[in-house]
């Protein structure tokens, strides 16, 4: 009996308005329950993403320890300015995305659209810089499997004249570039998916959705976007920075 009364009270005092929200799906009791389920589901999805990238990070760790000089030399060929620029771009885009979620929570449509467009532009900017870098690596014959030659590591470079590797070591740089392309490629794939989803959400927001308290899709997309940012936060030091001083 107690439980019935309590349930009735909660319904009365709590979310009377929300009980009839148009976006409440039939199998949920209340809007908070639906929202928490969505957030929890998203976080579980992100844990699978951690493990997905985890396999690559694990491979990177192993091969970096095996072929340390090759990984150092490979790392030296990357443009540190591009990496830093991209890190900055992504961090700022995370900020704009966080602001977009804030705008959705405070139900301001213009602000929401503005922040989402800013995020979209920054995301595309990141991809452009990345594409530029990849193009450079293609020109330098650093794409494993398709277009790879160890020649550039045999004689040292202007910036790093010490990078004169024996041929067998120089060939191991291919593994560095394999992992570089796998990790940045998987990351860029996630960025492309993110940009596409963001475009769809943006069109929906333009049609008036997500500013009536139904924040979960925006919020969950935000989580995804921040996660992709976090992956880059680790890729940046691992691929660009930690061998820079040598």
């Amino acid at each position, binding site marked *: *009996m107690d*439980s*019935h009364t309590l*349930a009735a009270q909660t319904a009365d005092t709590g979310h009377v308005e929300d009980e009839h929200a148009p976006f409440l799906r*039939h*199998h*949920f*009791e209340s809007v908070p*329950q639906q929202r*928490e*389920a969505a957030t*929890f*589901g998203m976080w*579980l*999805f992100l*844990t*699978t*993403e951690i*493990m*997905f*990238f*985890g*396999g*690559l990070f*694990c*491979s990177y760790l*192993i*091969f970096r320890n*095996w*072929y340390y000089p090759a990984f150092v030399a490979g790392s030296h060929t990357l443009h540190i300015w591009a990496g830093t620029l991209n890190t900055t771009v992504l961090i700022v885009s995370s900020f704009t995305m966080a602001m977009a979620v804030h705008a959705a929570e405070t139900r301001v449509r213009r602000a929401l659209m503005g922040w989402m467009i800013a995020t979209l532009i920054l995301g595309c900017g990141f991809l452009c810089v990345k594409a530029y870098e990849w193009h450079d690596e293609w020109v330098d014959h650093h794409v*494993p*499997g*398709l277009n790879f030659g160890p020649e550039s590591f045999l004689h040292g470079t202007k910036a790093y004249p010490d990078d004169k590797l024996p041929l067998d070591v120089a*060939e*191991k740089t*291919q*593994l560095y570039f*394999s*992992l570089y*392309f*796998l990790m940045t490629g998987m990351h860029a794939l996630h960025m492309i998916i993110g940009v596409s989803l963001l475009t769809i959400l943006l069109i929906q927001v333009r049609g008036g959705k997500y500013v009536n308290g139904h924040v979960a899709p925006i919020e969950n997309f935000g989580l995804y976007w921040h996660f992709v940012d976090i992956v880059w936060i680790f890729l940046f030091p691992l691929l660009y920075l930690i061998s820079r001083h040598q």
Partner: protein
Amino acid sequence: MSTILSLPDQSTASLPKVSYLNKEYGLKSWLLTQDHKRIAILYLIAITFFFFVGGAMAALIRLELLTPQTDLLAADTYNKVFSAHGIIMVFFFLVPVAPAVLGNFLIPLMIGARDVAFPKINLLSWYLFVSGGCIELTMMVFGGVDTGWTFTTPLSTHYLNTNVVAAAMGIFVAGFSSILTGLNFLVTIHRMRAPGMTWFRLPLFIWSYYATSFIFVLATPVIAIALVLVVLERIIGIGVFDPAKGGDPLLFQHLFWFYSHPAVYVMILPGMGVISEVVACFCRKRVFGYTAVAFSSVAIGVFSFFVWAHHMFIMGISSYSALVFSLMTMLVAVPSAIKIFNWSATMYKGSITFDTPMLYTLGFIGLFTIGGLTGVFLASMGMDIHLTETYFVVAHFHFVMVGGMVTAFMAGLHFWWPKITGRMYPESMGRIAAVILFTGFNLTFFPQFILGYLGMPRRYAAYPPEFQVLNVFSSAGATVLAVGYLLPLLYLTWSLKYGKIAGANPWQAAGLEWEIQSPPLTENFPVTPIVTHEAYDYEWLASKKGSEVPTVG
């Protein structure tokens, strides 16, 4: 306030006018459904299909092994057949069968929810599963793959020109189906429980499925990336698994078994959940040591992430590392044994009735114990060097997977069949099938322990003539086993139309799912139930009737 108000009289039971089965009609209403119960049925149909495809492959294997020569299948055809058997049975039958069929149907019913948390994603995961399966079948039609189900590098990346890429992509797609199913269950169990359904009032079935789901979510992505790497290695030669380029083939096995060993527990944990329910019902007792059984499920789930390299003891991994993995593997025996002991203790002084689900359950307990204990042999490194890659291993995992999981699934399917369809199957046929299955199974796989111990390697189409007697035993047993599987297919299908009407609770079982009509309404519970007691209140049920509650059958 009590949850079981009246126990229906079986003789006058009638089918409810409206249920999830007849609410809507037409193919479209099934293919676009978001109802967890209908999705479970879709899975059941798809998975039964894959089971019999895989079974046909097994039949070919056993026929070939009837004689020592390669007379029925050429050696490379044989390789493709056992690979197809392994891939279909592991990824398209064993991994999804219990979670996707029984879990989808029962988890919302058992916790008092109207549906799983994300019904659309649930449907999506069925489509992913079917797409993955179609890729796999197409791949087999166009020449198949002969890596075995393990895709071991460098064999799969460098030495074969069969359809490895297609096979890997099929599994990749089906893997997403597993991830989404696991994700859905976790959110459902955490967020959708009915008022009063506390963690320690949950049926043990739910605890098992909880452990299964977190393995799905955390382990499956790793095989996804491993398979992507194999595909890229084959297509463009990235070199991560290529020793010539400095890569390490063993790395693939680490990543592969990081998923595939936990996946073994994905295959057995749901079975354990089923057994807990069935044992309690047919002994009319609360499961002995509820908390221990619940936590042993979680413990198996957690340990499963620490044991994978026992598949690689002879592959050239560090022997120091192997020692750690060996020790961790033996630890898994502890929670498994806790379960076996607790089920036995539940049966002690229980009022046991030997209905079909209980017969399967007793079969499970015996077979799983043998399978589990031979697992401890294989976990000890010295024994493993002698036994690995022989038929001993084949027998071991068939005892766990087929003797354990499939038997448990059959127990669950028979136990909940009246709930799923509203009709009973012919009980005598059920019992006969259970006995045939048990006999056939032992006849098929027990000789393989001996064969393996004597040194017959697995995955060969030919063998020395002195092994023939035991192989003939095994092949003969396989025909008995086939009858054991075909029989339920026939009488369960028959019962859809001609079975006796079951009524809401034919087994007089406790548990939320038995309080609603069978088959249930689309929305499961017309009024959200309020739970006041735990799932195994058989003492209470008995006192309600004034005498021991009889079972039907």
